[in-house]
Protein backbone atom coordinates (compact mmCIF):
# COMPACT_ATOMS: atom_id res chain seq x y z
CA UNK A 1 0.00 0.00 0.00
CA UNK A 2 1.35 3.48 -0.82
CA UNK A 3 2.38 5.67 2.07
CA UNK A 4 0.03 8.66 2.31
CA UNK A 5 1.22 11.95 3.80
CA UNK A 6 -1.37 14.39 5.12
CA UNK A 7 -0.46 18.06 5.43
CA UNK A 8 -2.10 20.98 7.17
CA UNK A 9 -5.88 20.78 7.31
CA UNK A 10 -5.75 17.34 5.68
CA UNK A 11 -4.69 15.90 9.01
CA UNK A 12 -7.74 17.32 10.73
CA UNK A 13 -10.03 15.19 8.58
CA UNK A 14 -8.00 12.04 9.20
CA UNK A 15 -8.02 11.99 12.97
CA UNK A 16 -4.81 13.97 13.35
CA UNK A 17 -2.45 11.51 11.69
CA UNK A 18 0.29 12.98 9.52
CA UNK A 19 0.77 9.72 7.65
CA UNK A 20 -1.37 6.71 6.96
CA UNK A 21 -1.56 3.77 4.60
CA UNK A 22 -4.41 3.59 2.13
CA UNK A 23 -5.08 0.95 -0.49
CA UNK A 24 -5.33 1.54 -4.21
CA UNK A 25 -3.55 1.16 -7.53
CA UNK A 26 -4.25 4.71 -8.66
CA UNK A 27 -4.53 8.08 -6.90
CA UNK A 28 -8.29 7.89 -7.41
CA UNK A 29 -8.49 4.53 -5.62
CA UNK A 30 -6.32 5.73 -2.78
CA UNK A 31 -8.53 8.76 -2.22
CA UNK A 32 -11.62 6.57 -2.36
CA UNK A 33 -10.15 4.34 0.31
CA UNK A 34 -9.46 7.41 2.46
CA UNK A 35 -13.02 8.63 2.01
CA UNK A 36 -14.35 5.22 3.01
CA UNK A 37 -12.19 5.22 6.10
CA UNK A 38 -12.46 8.87 7.24
CA UNK A 39 -15.87 9.83 5.89
CA UNK A 40 -17.36 12.64 3.81
CA UNK A 41 -15.21 15.41 5.33
CA UNK A 42 -12.17 13.65 3.89
CA UNK A 43 -13.91 13.21 0.53
CA UNK A 44 -14.78 16.90 0.52
CA UNK A 45 -11.20 17.94 1.30
CA UNK A 46 -9.96 15.83 -1.61
CA UNK A 47 -11.94 18.02 -3.98
CA UNK A 48 -9.94 21.07 -2.87
CA UNK A 49 -6.55 19.49 -2.31
CA UNK A 50 -3.77 18.65 -4.71
CA UNK A 51 -2.27 15.19 -4.80
CA UNK A 52 1.44 14.78 -5.35
CA UNK A 53 3.14 11.45 -5.92
CA UNK A 54 6.79 11.12 -4.90
CA UNK A 55 7.06 14.86 -4.51
CA UNK A 56 5.61 15.84 -7.89
CA UNK A 57 2.10 16.97 -8.85
CA UNK A 58 -0.02 14.04 -10.01
CA UNK A 59 -3.62 13.45 -11.05
CA UNK A 60 -6.34 10.93 -10.32
CA UNK A 61 -5.16 8.53 -12.98
CA UNK A 62 -1.58 8.33 -11.73
CA UNK A 63 -0.69 4.73 -10.90
CA UNK A 64 0.76 4.11 -7.45
CA UNK A 65 2.34 1.11 -5.78
CA UNK A 66 3.83 0.06 -2.47
CA UNK A 67 7.03 2.07 -2.98
CA UNK A 68 5.21 5.31 -3.71
CA UNK A 69 4.56 8.30 -1.53
CA UNK A 70 1.20 10.00 -2.03
CA UNK A 71 0.83 13.44 -0.46
CA UNK A 72 -2.42 15.29 0.07
CA UNK A 73 -1.81 19.04 -0.12
CA UNK A 74 -4.71 21.31 0.83
CA UNK A 75 -4.60 24.98 -0.16
CA UNK A 76 -1.59 26.67 1.42
CA UNK A 77 -1.54 29.55 3.84
CA UNK A 78 2.20 29.87 4.26
CA UNK A 79 4.37 32.96 4.31
Amino acid at each position, binding site marked *: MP*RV*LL*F*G*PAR*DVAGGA*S*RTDLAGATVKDVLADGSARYGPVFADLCHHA*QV*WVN*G*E*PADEATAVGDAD*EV*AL*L*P*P*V*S*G*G
Partner: protein
Amino acid sequence: MTGTAPAGQPAPTREPAPPAQGNTWVALSAAPLPVDEIARWAKEPPSGAVVLFCGCVRDHSPGRTGVVALEYEAYDGPALRRMEEVADAARRRWPAVGRLAIVHRVGLLQVSDDAVAVAVASPHRDDAFEAARYCIDTVKATVPLWKRERWTGDADSPGGEDWGTCAHDLEAVEP
Protein backbone atom coordinates in the same frame (compact mmCIF):
# COMPACT_ATOMS: atom_id res chain seq x y z
CA MET B 1 2.79 18.80 14.14
CA THR B 2 6.40 19.00 13.03
CA GLY B 3 7.29 18.71 9.36
CA THR B 4 7.12 15.28 7.90
CA ALA B 5 10.35 14.03 6.40
CA PRO B 6 9.56 11.27 3.92
CA ALA B 7 12.22 8.71 3.17
CA GLY B 8 14.96 10.28 1.09
CA GLN B 9 13.83 13.83 1.80
CA PRO B 10 16.13 16.03 3.84
CA ALA B 11 14.65 17.27 7.09
CA PRO B 12 14.83 21.00 7.79
CA THR B 13 18.25 22.12 8.92
CA ARG B 14 18.20 23.11 12.54
CA GLU B 15 20.72 25.90 12.10
CA PRO B 16 21.04 26.76 8.43
CA ALA B 17 24.54 27.75 7.33
CA PRO B 18 25.60 29.44 4.11
CA PRO B 19 26.36 27.03 1.28
CA ALA B 20 29.99 25.96 1.00
CA GLN B 21 29.94 27.12 -2.60
CA GLY B 22 27.63 28.69 -5.11
CA ASN B 23 25.51 31.80 -5.18
CA THR B 24 22.24 30.34 -3.97
CA TRP B 25 21.27 29.63 -0.38
CA VAL B 26 17.97 27.80 -0.05
CA ALA B 27 16.96 26.26 3.26
CA LEU B 28 14.20 25.36 5.66
CA SER B 29 15.12 26.18 9.22
CA ALA B 30 13.77 24.84 12.47
CA ALA B 31 15.82 27.49 14.32
CA PRO B 32 15.36 31.28 14.24
CA LEU B 33 16.44 32.61 10.87
CA PRO B 34 20.01 33.95 10.79
CA VAL B 35 18.86 37.16 9.12
CA ASP B 36 22.02 39.14 9.82
CA GLU B 37 24.15 36.39 8.38
CA ILE B 38 21.91 36.07 5.31
CA ALA B 39 22.23 39.78 4.57
CA ARG B 40 26.00 39.70 5.08
CA TRP B 41 26.43 36.58 2.96
CA ALA B 42 24.54 38.15 0.06
CA LYS B 43 27.04 40.95 -0.35
CA GLU B 44 30.01 40.54 -2.68
CA PRO B 45 32.41 43.04 -4.27
CA PRO B 46 30.48 43.38 -7.56
CA SER B 47 27.19 43.94 -5.73
CA GLY B 48 26.08 47.50 -5.29
CA ALA B 49 22.64 46.63 -3.98
CA VAL B 50 21.26 44.12 -1.52
CA VAL B 51 17.53 43.83 -0.87
CA LEU B 52 16.49 41.80 2.15
CA PHE B 53 12.85 40.94 2.73
CA CYS B 54 11.71 39.48 6.03
CA GLY B 55 8.21 38.20 6.48
CA CYS B 56 7.51 38.08 10.18
CA VAL B 57 4.74 36.99 12.51
CA ARG B 58 2.16 39.74 13.00
CA ASP B 59 -0.04 40.12 16.06
CA HIS B 60 -3.11 39.90 13.84
CA SER B 61 -4.33 38.23 10.66
CA PRO B 62 -7.46 38.68 8.57
CA GLY B 63 -10.35 38.42 11.04
CA ARG B 64 -8.15 37.50 14.01
CA THR B 65 -6.66 39.80 16.63
CA GLY B 66 -4.37 38.82 19.48
CA VAL B 67 -2.39 36.32 17.43
CA VAL B 68 0.37 35.04 19.74
CA ALA B 69 1.99 32.20 17.81
CA LEU B 70 2.17 30.46 14.48
CA GLU B 71 3.23 26.98 13.62
CA TYR B 72 4.58 26.31 10.15
CA GLU B 73 4.90 22.93 8.56
CA ALA B 74 6.39 22.12 5.19
CA TYR B 75 6.43 19.19 2.83
CA ASP B 76 10.16 19.37 3.34
CA GLY B 77 11.89 17.91 0.30
CA PRO B 78 9.41 19.18 -2.28
CA ALA B 79 9.30 22.56 -0.51
CA LEU B 80 13.09 22.86 -0.80
CA ARG B 81 12.96 21.88 -4.45
CA ARG B 82 10.26 24.48 -5.13
CA MET B 83 12.37 27.12 -3.40
CA GLU B 84 15.29 26.15 -5.62
CA GLU B 85 13.04 26.41 -8.67
CA VAL B 86 12.03 29.90 -7.55
CA ALA B 87 15.70 30.89 -7.24
CA ASP B 88 16.46 29.49 -10.70
CA ALA B 89 13.46 31.24 -12.22
CA ALA B 90 14.57 34.54 -10.65
CA ARG B 91 18.04 34.15 -12.17
CA ARG B 92 16.56 33.52 -15.60
CA ARG B 93 14.49 36.70 -15.29
CA TRP B 94 17.25 38.87 -13.78
CA PRO B 95 20.55 37.41 -15.01
CA ALA B 96 22.63 40.12 -13.30
CA VAL B 97 21.58 38.85 -9.88
CA GLY B 98 24.54 37.68 -7.77
CA ARG B 99 23.88 35.96 -4.50
CA LEU B 100 20.34 34.95 -3.71
CA ALA B 101 18.97 33.46 -0.49
CA ILE B 102 15.54 32.05 0.31
CA VAL B 103 15.22 30.64 3.82
CA HIS B 104 11.89 29.68 5.40
CA ARG B 105 11.27 28.85 9.02
CA VAL B 106 9.28 25.83 10.17
CA GLY B 107 7.98 24.96 13.62
CA LEU B 108 6.61 27.19 16.34
CA LEU B 109 7.08 30.97 16.01
CA GLN B 110 6.20 33.89 18.29
CA VAL B 111 5.09 37.37 17.26
CA SER B 112 7.90 39.26 15.45
CA ASP B 113 9.82 36.07 14.68
CA ASP B 114 10.94 35.89 11.07
CA ALA B 115 9.02 33.32 9.05
CA VAL B 116 10.83 33.83 5.77
CA ALA B 117 13.85 35.77 4.57
CA VAL B 118 14.76 36.55 0.98
CA ALA B 119 18.00 38.33 0.10
CA VAL B 120 19.07 39.34 -3.39
CA ALA B 121 22.28 41.09 -4.38
CA SER B 122 22.99 42.64 -7.76
CA PRO B 123 25.12 45.38 -9.27
CA HIS B 124 22.09 47.69 -9.55
CA ARG B 125 19.09 48.11 -7.33
CA ASP B 126 16.41 47.63 -10.00
CA ASP B 127 17.28 43.97 -10.33
CA ALA B 128 17.66 43.42 -6.60
CA PHE B 129 14.27 44.94 -5.79
CA GLU B 130 12.43 43.19 -8.60
CA ALA B 131 13.99 39.79 -8.04
CA ALA B 132 13.39 39.93 -4.28
CA ARG B 133 9.76 40.83 -4.85
CA TYR B 134 9.40 38.04 -7.39
CA CYS B 135 10.97 35.50 -5.04
CA ILE B 136 8.73 36.18 -2.06
CA ASP B 137 5.58 36.36 -4.19
CA THR B 138 6.45 33.12 -5.95
CA VAL B 139 7.50 31.33 -2.75
CA LYS B 140 4.11 32.14 -1.26
CA ALA B 141 2.30 30.87 -4.34
CA THR B 142 4.26 27.70 -5.00
CA VAL B 143 5.89 26.23 -1.89
CA PRO B 144 3.99 23.56 0.06
CA LEU B 145 3.89 25.19 3.51
CA TRP B 146 1.00 25.47 5.95
CA LYS B 147 0.53 27.76 8.88
CA ARG B 148 -1.53 27.25 12.01
CA GLU B 149 -2.42 30.30 14.05
CA ARG B 150 -3.02 30.57 17.80
CA TRP B 151 -4.78 33.63 19.21
CA THR B 152 -5.93 34.81 22.60
CA GLY B 153 -9.48 35.77 23.42
CA ASP B 154 -10.94 38.92 24.91
CA ALA B 155 -14.28 39.95 26.46
CA ASP B 156 -16.05 39.56 23.10
CA SER B 157 -14.48 36.49 21.57
CA PRO B 158 -12.78 33.33 22.68
CA GLY B 159 -9.21 32.46 21.80
CA GLY B 160 -8.46 29.60 19.48
CA GLU B 161 -6.18 27.83 17.10
CA ASP B 162 -6.74 27.04 13.46
CA TRP B 163 -5.12 26.96 10.03
CA GLY B 164 -4.38 30.29 8.39
CA THR B 165 -7.20 31.96 6.56
CA CYS B 166 -6.89 33.14 2.95
CA ALA B 167 -5.54 29.78 1.82
CA HIS B 168 -4.97 29.37 -1.89
CA ASP B 169 -4.16 26.59 -4.31
CA LEU B 170 -0.53 25.72 -4.81
CA GLU B 171 0.74 26.94 -8.16
CA ALA B 172 3.66 25.74 -10.23
CA VAL B 173 6.73 27.94 -10.75
CA GLU B 174 6.45 29.41 -14.25
CA PRO B 175 9.62 28.64 -16.23
